[in-house]
């Protein structure tokens, strides 16, 4: 590094073109997302988990080790997507952690002050982050889900259970499962934006998925069981898997309700608090 006479290049093009824009903020968030190792690793783990768990579960099932004696493979409904849905249960944990990190990492490192200095209205940063994270997570999840279906389908076909990717019983749940992963990630991001802390955000997001349902299940009352049905984890499952309680579109609306609550709270706090 050398200190020289300050050469300040300021090209004339900047003065006229330099302007805050929605497209620019979206592009900025895309650059931020892809330029962190943690993001790349998390998405790689999601892909690997999705495919490996799918293969494992289907192999075990086809090998009959996982079946009660006397049942036939064809008796199990939705077996064609069992590998996919099994992987989602694990991938959702990684997606939640990543969702929290995407926003809490900005607070813990101080980056948020640079981000808000560039976008002083603040909320466009939150919306752009959510949109970019939703789209990327959806695409990556769907790729993982699709691969896990494609590698497990031949194993199932060999055991006499055939399915068609383009039939609505298969493609709709696959698209729905990716949608669930993207939405649960966005919900975790909303929680991270409220709490602004990585540790607290991850604890809250995973707690809502794993711990809160167990607590309500322990309470022996009808209202308690109904509450469990409305929690993000079980509602989300109803988006892509047959549910006794909600249709997929009802489940989707409830999930969006959770996200609206989280982001509404986060937005109010983000405007009010000092960065």
């Amino acid at each position, binding site marked *: 590094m050398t200190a*020289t006479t300050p050469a300040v290049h300021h090209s004339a093009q900047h003065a006229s073109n330099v302007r805050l824009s929605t497209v620019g903020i979206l592009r900025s968030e895309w650059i931020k997302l892809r330029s962190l190792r943690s993001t790349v690793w998390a998405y790689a783990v999601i892909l690997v988990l999705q495919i490996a768990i799918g293969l494992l579960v289907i192999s075990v099932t086809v090998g009959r080790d996982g079946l009660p004696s006397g049942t036939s493979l064809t008796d199990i409904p939705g077996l064609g997507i069992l590998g996919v849905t099994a992987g989602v249960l694990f991938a959702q944990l990684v997606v939640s952690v990543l969702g929290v990190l995407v926003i809490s990492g900005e607070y813990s490192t101080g980056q948020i002050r640079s981000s808000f*200095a560039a976008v002083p209205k603040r909320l466009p940063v939150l919306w752009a982050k959510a949109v970019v994270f939703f789209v990327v997570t959806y695409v990556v999840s769907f790729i993982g889900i699709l691969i896990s279906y494609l590698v497990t389908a031949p194993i199932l076909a060999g055991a006499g259970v055939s399915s068609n990717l383009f039939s609505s019983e298969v493609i709709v749940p696959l698209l729905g499962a990716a949608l669930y992963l993207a939405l649960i990630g966005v919900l975790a991001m909303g929680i991270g934006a409220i709490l602004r802390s990585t540790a607290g955000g991850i604890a809250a997001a995973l707690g809502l998925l794993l711990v809160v349902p167990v607590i309500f299940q322990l309470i022996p009352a009808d209202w308690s069981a109904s509450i469990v049905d409305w929690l993000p984890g079980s509602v989300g499952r109803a988006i892509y898997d047959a549910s006794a309680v909600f249709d997929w579109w009802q489940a989707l609306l409830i999930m969006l309700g959770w996200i609206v609550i989280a982001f509404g709270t986060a937005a109010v706090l983000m405007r009010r608090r000092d960065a």
Partner: protein
Amino acid sequence: MIEARSLTKTYGAKTAVDQVSFTVRPGLVTGFLGPNGAGKSTTMRMIVGLDRPTAGSVTVNGKAYRESHAPLHEVGVLLDAKAIHSGRSAYSHLLALGATHGIGATRVREVIEMTGLESVAKKRVGGFSLGMGQRLGIAAAMLGDPGTLILDEPVNGLDPEGVVWVRELVRYLAAEGRTVLLSSHLMSEMALTADHIIVLGKGRVLADAPVAEMVSASTVSSVRAVSPQAAEIARLLVSPDVTITSVDAQTLEIVGLTSAAVGEAAASAGIVLHELTPLKGSLEDAYMNLTADAVEYRTGAFDPSTTPMNQEASR
């Protein structure tokens, strides 16, 4: 042009910034001075909307910063070197920051070159030294070619070369007609860099004046005379308007007379002078006098932040 009017920020019962009003003009380097906890950083954060004022308002070029259509072109800000995600490379950080305003890779490379970060641009910021972090912060501030620069402790952690570079940079930017507000704890550096000084203490404006004016108003000019016949000179010069202090047997410090008057008086009495030196107050002296009552975290009688080397600093 930055205009603050009755700007106030309280944290619970503690008032960090108390009814502060000032104007930072274009074409000048304005220095923000004050002890730790005086409210300098909080004031700077309020200018760019990172902290919400409890009362009062501050505008940049006549409007609130958050209303700007191109904030990075309006104000370039270096708040602290840690306002950057440590996991990202310097290049990616600047690219992401610039992208919000449609600023592309060409300009990013320009500011990287300008701040001398070429060799580390692709490395992760987490491994940067304090000085490299400061350079990156300055690169980020320059990214939007801003009309106003706000630099909080820009020379903190820089090597001597870097300190000179920052000084030349801000003087150059001000000469171009930009508005420059910077804070520093290095008084000698501030004396060399700033045209105008705003002194904050305990959240209030203690002084707001050009550097030269501040020094002459807040310090006393004196004359040092060294002579084997010091006592005789002292007798010659005695008058109600003149204060004479005997530093040692041969040395006097005289307040109230010019060095010419002292020299002529000695010559007419045939007294030998070994030394005759006009002593001007420094910015540091002025600052110490102004903030004597406003220091939040006081050290003992010896203040390590004052270095004897700075005493003679003047513009």
